[in-house]
Every structure is written in C-alpha cells, then in structure tokens.
C-alpha cells in the first residue's frame, strides 16, 4: 500500500481517538463541575473551615445577703502564637520576663508541640499584673508569643461555704452518666470541668453558660491559619442562694474547730439560710490540688470533705421527744394529764432489761409536759411500749423519713425509714417492741441528718405543715405531718418547749436567749450503748465515744420564723454546749431581717 494512504488512514484513526477522549473529558468535567459542583464545593468548605470552642464564663453564686461566693475571674496566660514561629531571640526575651518559671528547653518543647497539634499551647499561666504589663510592653519584641485570656473559678475562702458551693473538677466517666440523665444534649467533649458537688453540681446547667466559637481557615495539615469570625459565648446565669453568709460564717466560727453541724430553716418559705458542716476547707483549696494532698484530705480522721449537715446520720437523742409527742397524742397513747413515776431508770418488762436515765434518782412524778421540759427518758420509754409498729412507721414516713429532705442539696442523705422491712433487710429480723422503746428516746435504730432535725423542728414550729427545704429554688409541694392534734395540744407542746429554755428545771436553762423568745429541746445522744453512769465515765476518756450534744429549736415561739438544729459531735451536753451556739446563730440570722 502507498505510504501516504497508509499514513492518512492511521492519522485519521488517531484523530478520532483524540476526539473521542475529548468528548469523554468534557462529559466528565460537566459531571464534576456542573452536576456535582455544589456537593464538591461543600466538601471543599468542610476541608478548609474549622472552628474552636471558646469556653464560656460561668455564672456567679451570690448569697442572700449579697456576697459573691463564687465567680469566674479572668486570668491571663502566655501561649504560642501559631502565625509566627518564635526565634531564639524572642525565646530568650520571654525567659527574661519569667526568670524562675520557665527555661529554654521547656519553651522550645511547647512551641514544637503547638506547631505539631495546631493548638495554642500555654507556656506560662496565671500571670500577675506586673508580669502581664511587662509582657505587653515588650510584646513587639516577643514575636511568636501572645497573651490569651480564660477564666478561673474563685470562691470565697471562708471554709463555712465549701460544702454548700461544692467544687469544680475534671469530667469523669461517672460525671458523664450523671449529667447525661439530667441535662438535655450534654456533650461531654465540650466540658473540661464540671461541678463535682454542692450548688456547682446541682445547678451545672444553669451556671455553665454556652460556648462561643472562633472560626478558622485551616490548611491540609490542620494548622489554623486565619481567624475569620467569632461567636461570643453566653455567660452562665448567676444564682442567688438562700444562704445568709454572715450567719453562715458566724455559725462555722461558733463550732470553733469541733466536729458538728448547724442547719437553720426559714419558716416563711423553707429556704435554708444556714447549713454548716465542720470541719471544712476553703473551696479554693481543691482547685489545683495534687492527688497526694487530696488523698490526705480524704484520709483525715476529722473528715473535712464530709458534709455532715446533709449526709451525717446521728441518733437524735432527746431532741426527738417533741416529735414523738405529736405521734403519741395523735394516737391517744397518752394525754397531758397522765403521770408516771420516774425513779431514774426504766425496766423493760418483756426482756427485763434496765435502761438508766441521765439524772440519778429520776424526776419523780412526771407528766408529758414535765417529761419534755426536764427530758425524762423513763416517761418516753414507757410511752414507747404502747406504740404500734405500723402506725409508728407511717408517722415517720409522713415526717419525710426515707425521703428526700432537700430540693437542691448535693450530696444528700435520707434518714432511714424504720419499718419491719427495713430492719429485716438490714438486721435479718423484724422490729421488736424493745427496739421501739430505744427509739422512743432517739436511740437505737433511729438516726437522722442535721438537716432533718432542723426540718423536724420546723414541723413542730409550723404545727405539722411543712415543705421541702431548698437553697435556690422552691418546690411547690406542701407536706403534712400525719397527726390529729387539737390547737390546745399544739399550744401545750409549744409551751413545754418554751419552758425547756425558760423554766428553772428546764434542760436549756443555761441558754438564756435574752429577748429572742426561743423554744427548743436539748438532747444528748449516746455514741455507744451503755448501761450505767460508771460505764460512761470510763468511755468518756476517749473523746470519740463522748456523747453528741444536740439542740433543736425555733424562734420566736409565738410567731416562729426560724427553726434550727445544732449537732456537736462528742460535745456531751445539749443544753449547755449546743444550745448557746444555736442562740448565737439565731441572733445573727435575726439581725439580717
């Protein structure tokens, strides 16, 4: 064949292949650019656009009397500026500003890390005013470093308030489950620190605010390059709590290093103006604590981290007597006229066991009123032999045993509801009548928290109506004690409790409240079960086995405004130790009205 024909044929063949490929390419690019263009453009935007969350400023916690108890304070730190890599000179200058805080290799390592991760790593945190101004003055010579702002939680340092406020801590697995069930759309990855206890935990959602965002364009290696926008964070809400901080501080100081608890309830709305647990720590102490120091606090025998006011279970001792008076009168187990002879001890006929009372020789002929004023154990033990178990349990239940005692206290403990089931579950046998005898004077299985004691005092003051106490928010749910008392009965009861303080024989005579009009009931709760005074004298050598001093009361007795409970561990005498403390706390509370 002729070369030329051959050549022409093959050239045309190749030209057609070329044209076919051109058409394929045109279709392909039409598909990519016109049909799929928007989708691919979206992918490109995802490539490039990134953002970083800006941690919000947490809301403040403010006491009823206007003290700021917790707030986020701005702190300044030096961090690596990702846009310029710092040179040797700049690093040297930076070190000269913080000569004792940082050294060369440390700075270089952090710079390396920042470049690698694309995060602004912090080199020096919490600058003081002097350091900050030194840095800012020379900042143009310090290329590669910049000041960043964030917030630190600062608390009022007085230890009285720690248990109420709680503290912040790094989010743990347990926190995740806790908050997931309580906060809508809880995103664990966003929250470095969350409230670990107290108000900080219960009101996490209200306090925490919402993150802001800083928008960046980033390159393929993930380095942030340009900030292109900002969305401000939403500050958390301020919380007003019912604590009267002056009274709270006073109450803590009055405990004077002893272990114990004081709770006051405002009877007008059932808010809690005072709730103290001692000993305690400053809420700031936990912020940057090492695990070793934290362990030491946990192992401290005085248990400063334990909130006795809401968590501690104590036998109420004689302070429970007015409460059971309501029960006994409602069920006609006794009346104000009945008298028994108190000769200083009570022999329980069924078992033959003898219970010694606190006053040797007894109170003689005793009626209900005298039994309250002079605190006769034999009278109430005798009374308790008549209690019917089911009625007893029902009555306790109506008094919030086994139930929540506070709307927003954390942590928080129920007082156990004593019943056949409860005892079977815990001790393997049903309730015996002898158990009721012991409980009738606030010993044995009966135990309550100081908060519950204050609430019981409030129930008595308010003649059986009560609400669940709160620190921040009220719950619209009025409760009622299960009773059947006449107005006359209430009057007699309040009179008797007044006489505890004002009658010459009253156990609270040493309180001397002046013109405060205090009514109350003292108590001394045994830590160990004993049978005689001699036995106790031996025990008392060990401070830990000394009786707890207790007091409940309310004032003024004619129109009650506040109810109080005081528990002083191993304080021994309710009347002379716990009572005066209650008086002084109430004076402080009243002074704020």
């Amino acid at each position: 064949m002729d070369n030329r024909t051959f050549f022409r044929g093959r050239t045309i063949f190749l030209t057609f292949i070329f044209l076919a490929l051109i058409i394929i390419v045109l279709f392909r690019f039409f598909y990519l650019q016109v049909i799929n263009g928007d989708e691919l453009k979206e992918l490109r935007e995802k490539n490039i656009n990134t953002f970083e969350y800006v941690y919000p400023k947490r809301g403040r916690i403010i006491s009823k009397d206007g003290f700021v108890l917790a707030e986020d304070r701005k702190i300044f730190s030096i961090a690596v500026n990702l846009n310029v890599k710092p040179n040797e000179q700049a690093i040297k200058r930076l070190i000269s500003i913080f000569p004792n805080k940082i050294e060369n290799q440390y700075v270089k390592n952090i710079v390396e890390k920042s470049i690698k991760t694309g995060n602004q790593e912090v080199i020096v945190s919490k600058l003081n005013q002097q350091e900050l101004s030194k840095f800012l003055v020379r900042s143009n010579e310090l290329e590669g470093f910049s000041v960043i702002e964030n917030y630190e939680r600062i608390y009022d340092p007085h230890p009285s308030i720690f248990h109420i406020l709680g503290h912040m801590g790094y989010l743990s697995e347990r926190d995740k489950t806790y908050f997931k069930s309580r906060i809508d759309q809880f995103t664990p990855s966003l929250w470095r620190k969350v409230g670990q206890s107290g108000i900080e935990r219960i009101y996490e959602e209200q306090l925490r605010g919402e993150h802001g965002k800083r928008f960046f364009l980033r390159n393929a290696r993930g380095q942030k390059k340009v900030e292109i926008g900002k969305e401000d964070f939403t500050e958390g809400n301020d919380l007003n709590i019912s604590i009267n901080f002056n009274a709270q501080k006073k109450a803590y100081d009055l405990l004077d290093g002893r272990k114990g608890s004081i709770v006051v309830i405002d009877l007008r709305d059932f808010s809690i103006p005072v709730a103290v647990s001692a000993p305690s720590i400053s809420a700031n102490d936990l912020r940057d604590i090492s695990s070793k120091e934290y362990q030491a606090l946990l192992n401290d025998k005085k248990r400063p981290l334990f909130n006795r006011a809401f968590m501690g279970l104590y036998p109420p001792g004689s302070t429970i007597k007015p409460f059971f008076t309501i029960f006994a009168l409602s069920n006609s187990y006794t009346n104000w006229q009945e008298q028994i002879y108190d000769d200083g001890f009570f022999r329980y006929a069924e078992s033959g066991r003898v219970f010694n009372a606190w006053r040797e020789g007894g109170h003689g002929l005793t009626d209900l009123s005298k039994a309250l004023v002079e605190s006769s154990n034999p009278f109430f033990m005798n009374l308790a032999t008549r209690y019917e178990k089911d009625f007893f349990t029902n009555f306790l239940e109506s008094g919030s045993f086994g139930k929540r005692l506070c709307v927003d206290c954390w942590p928080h403990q129920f007082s156990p509801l004593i019943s056949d089931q409860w005892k079977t579950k815990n001790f393997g046998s049903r309730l015996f009548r002898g158990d009721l005898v012991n409980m009738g004077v606030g010993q044995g299985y009966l135990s309550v928290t100081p908060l519950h004691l204050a609430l019981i005092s409030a129930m008595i003051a308010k003649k059986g109506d009560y609400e669940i106490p709160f620190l921040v928010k009220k719950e619209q749910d009025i409760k009622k004690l299960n009773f059947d008392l006449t107005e006359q009965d209430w009057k007699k009861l309040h009179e008797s409790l007044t006489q505890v303080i004002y009658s010459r024989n009253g156990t609270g005579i040493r309180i001397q409240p002046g013109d405060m009009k205090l009514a109350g009931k003292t108590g001394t709760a045994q830590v160990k079960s004993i049978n005689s005074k001699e036995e106790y004298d031996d025990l008392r050598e060990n401070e830990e086995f000394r009786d707890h001093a207790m007091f409940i009361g309310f004032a003024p007795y004619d129109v009650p405004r506040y109810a109080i409970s005081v528990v002083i561990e191993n304080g021994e005498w309710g009347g002379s130790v716990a009572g005066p403390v209650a008086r002084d706390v109430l004076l402080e509370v009243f002074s704020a009205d």
Partner: protein
Amino acid sequence: MLIDLRSFLIIFSLLGIIIAGSLTVYSVTSIDAFYFVRFLLITLISIILVSLFFNYVNLNRVLSAGWLILGLNLALVLSVEIFGKEINGSKRWLDFGFLSLQPSEFMKISYALFVIQYLRFFNFKFNIFRSFLLLFILFITAAPIIIQPDLGTGLIYILSGLMLLFICGLRRIYFIFMGLSAILLSPVIYNFFLTDYQRGRIISWFSTNQSLSEKWNILQSEISIGSGGLFGDGFLNSKQNEFNFLPEADTDFIFSIFAEQFGYAGVVLVLFLLTLFVILSMVVVMQQRRLTNDMSPYYLGAYFTFIIGFSFLMNVLMVSGLIPVVGLPLPFFTKGGSSLLCFSIMLGLIFSSRGFLRG
C-alpha cells in the same frame, strides 16, 4: 514571512494554551506579580528560539544524527544513576545548577528521530526484521527508565514509541499481538516486576477505601475541579491550593487548580484550543503531504502533535479520576524545565517540518 489563516489559528490556539498554563502556574506558585510575565516570556522565548533553531538547521541534518541523539540521550538517562539527584525516592534528575533536567523526558523525541532516520533509509517500508528491531530498541531503552524507578515516564515513553510506529506504518498484527501478551503477562508483571509502591497505587485504584492517600489525592483533585462550577471562582482564588489540600498542585494536579479558578467554561475553552491545535495541525500535515515524496517531516509533525494532544488528555483523565495517576506533566502547564523544553523542541520540530510557516 506570510502566515496563512490555518497557521495563524494554530499559533493562536497554542498561545491561548500557553497563556492559560502560565496564568495557572503563576496562581499556584504566586511568587510575585512579575513572575507571571517572566514565566510567560521565558516560555515563549524558549519556544521561539528552539523553533527558529530547528527551522534554520536543516531537518535532514537533525535526522541524520538520529541514532547519535538517541545514544546520547540514553547515556544521559543512565548517567542519572551516577550523577543524578534523588527526589522522592527516585533518581530522575540531572542538576545543571540553573536547571534540573529529566533526561528520560527527552527519550520520546530521541527515539522518534532515530526511528525516522532509520526508516527513511528504507523508504518507510517495514519488514519483520525492522519491525522487531525497532520494537526491541524501544523496549530495551525503556528498561533503564522503569528501573529508576519511574514507571510513569517509562510507560508513556513506550506508548509514544508505539504510537510513532503506528503512524509510520508498523503492521497491525504486531499491535494485536502486543496487546494480547500485555493482558496475558499482566499477572506476571504485577507479581514479579512491580515494587510495593507501584502495586499499592494499582490496588488503591481499585479500592473503595477513601482513606488511602492515593484516593485522597484524587478526591481532593475532584473537589478542586467540582468547586469551580460553571464559571469558576476566579483567577487566584483557588482555596484548595491556598490551603494545600491538593498535593503536587504545581505539577501533576495543576489542571484541577485551573478548573477551580476558571470553571467548566475555562475547561471547555482550553480543550477547544487543544482540539483546534490538533485538528488544524493534522489538516496541514495532510495537505502538505502532497508536496514531497520524503514523508519524514509529516510523520514527525503528526507524531509530535499527537504527543502534545494525548499527553494533555492523559493528564486531564488522571486528575478527573478516570485513569490511575502516574506522574505525567501537563504540556505548557508546568514550571518543570524538562517538560517545557521537551514540548518546546516538539513545537520547534512541528514548525520546522516544512511548510508550516511558509504559507
């Protein structure tokens, strides 16, 4: 020197492609405002100088040195093993200080010159011996390139050589036979002659796993192209390039950046210019054919025209995800010196194959 309409259109379309290429190279590198002008001037001047050189030097003289050129080029390819500088794990470049050259790029030209010189001697008549000899030389000279390892350039060299032989009239039976044996031998080649890296590239092509880096590159390339839409984001507005999402944006994947900036309209325009260039060149070649009995200028003209056209298309097919990626620069869209020089020489040879500039 008069220029007729066809020649004018050919030069016009080439100029369009070169300007588009220079603009894109400038937008990718963005060194300074004068860079574009400088780059464009260097490109044009080198093309004109090389063209003039081949126009004045008689093509016959160039062709008579074909075997020498091939030998020298092969020597340079081999010398890379000794003097070459290594980039990305393969030795391909010879460093001349002001310019790094990749000698293997020029094999496409040298082999063509050699083949034309050889066949012209026999009036372009193939017999079995000549056919086998030329094929043997093609494959044996491809070996050092593939060993470098530079499978991409090696394969392109072989395909170019085969296309040349096809244009020159090698009988169809050889192509059929080679096609069949390539298919039959592919498992053997895959298992025994490819490196892990090369195998990885092939596997990734068939895999649907988007996290593989090869796939990621292609995806980023498609994102760049697609983001351009119908009319593009505008000159200097390639975000994919600005934020480094497209690897090798200044060489193999440069067309994606072009598509992102100028959109489908720009792509159509460039492909139109390319088609114009190829078709008109072929028309000229066809018509000039009647003028002389010595076919060599026309074989060369057709060959280099198709090399430019198909190289362009292959690269565009790769970046748009239609064929696997092997390192293949886009003609006139690269700042790579070898590629630019190589295509300039081709253009010079096209123009100097008589008649083009004669009107």
